[in-house]
């Protein structure tokens, strides 16, 4: 596989801040509370939805990285053996 504009591959480095932001947003911070019981009573409902939330969390990362890969591909114009590029 070769690229017509290999300099476009630099766009892939944007993946680093995307990953950093994703993990920063998803990190768990410690928060002291005077009475955990009250919180436990109100987050029961939320726990039921936590599986869906986890999927959504990872799906957003995959979609963002996929969008970056497509953008990089559009800029660097890869030539893949077996595929013919139609030039205008």
């Amino acid at each position, binding site marked *: 596989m070769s690229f017509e504009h290999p300099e476009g591959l630099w766009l892939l480095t944007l993946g680093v801040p995307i990953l950093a932001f994703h993990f920063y947003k998803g990190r768990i911070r410690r928060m002291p509370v005077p009475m*955990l019981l009250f919180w436990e009573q109100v987050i029961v*409902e939320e726990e039921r939805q936590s599986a869906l939330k986890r999927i959504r969390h990872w799906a957003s990362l995959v979609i963002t990285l996929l969008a970056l890969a497509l953008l990089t591909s559009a800029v660097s114009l890869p030539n893949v053996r077996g595929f013919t590029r139609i030039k205008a």
Partner: protein
Amino acid sequence: MAFDAAFLQTLEALNLLARRTLAGDDRAERLTPRKGASLEFADYRRYTPGDEIRYIDWNVYARHGSLFVKEFTAEENVHVSVLLDTSRSMDFGGKFQAAKELAAALGYIGLSNYDTLSLFTFGSEVRPIKKFLRGKGRVFELLSAVDALQPEGQTDMKRAFGPSLPRLRGRSLVLLITDFYDLAGYSDGVRELLAQRFGVHLIHMVSREEVTPKARGRFSLLDLETGKSKDATLMPRTLEAYGRRFRAFCAEVEDFGRSHELAYARVLSDDTLEHRVVEILRAGGIVEHR
């Protein structure tokens, strides 16, 4: 901890309210419904042999021809016991510092009224810090003792106020300063105090962060007292649900106080001390202007 002269003057103009007669040992400045010897007139009573002749009202005798004696209210001191919650849950949102300031201010009000003052801390047991202070001269002793207090341990009011409660002299007026966070339930503990015939005032400490928490995102919530933790994502919906739960808890404590005819005041830790004492505690029926 230090109070300025103007604030001390404000405190000196206040009096701790006792909702029922709490017999004290010494005369002081508190008027009680009991009859005694002060300048404050209370009522007339028909003369009976043995009454002191100097109390006969001769003007009434001149008009009605019957002998009546004047009665006066008794002025007595009471034993004021400040029970300050020093459990770790108080170490949140400035509650502990606010509670200490309040304990010192209420103590000073008691001392300036010649009441006998004792300061106790409690978590799962009651610890005497200062006992039987009298007179304004003891205020520095009180302030330095309050200043040195540190939050520690868990709350268990039933155990603390049960039979192991150190004997409080006479029938104390108990000022209970706490956040009422007790996993075993605060009501049994307060009932223990009432069973021992103390006059009890409830002072409920809350912080702004408890009333309206602002945090958003993923958190590991750590219980300050038990050390237990739970992961949760705090979203506006979760915070609203928590707010409702907390308000329900506050209303429940207030209802408990009302149903047992106890004075109750909810004090926000970030209010100024003067506002806390003069406005909130006065509205709650804990202090009054002399």
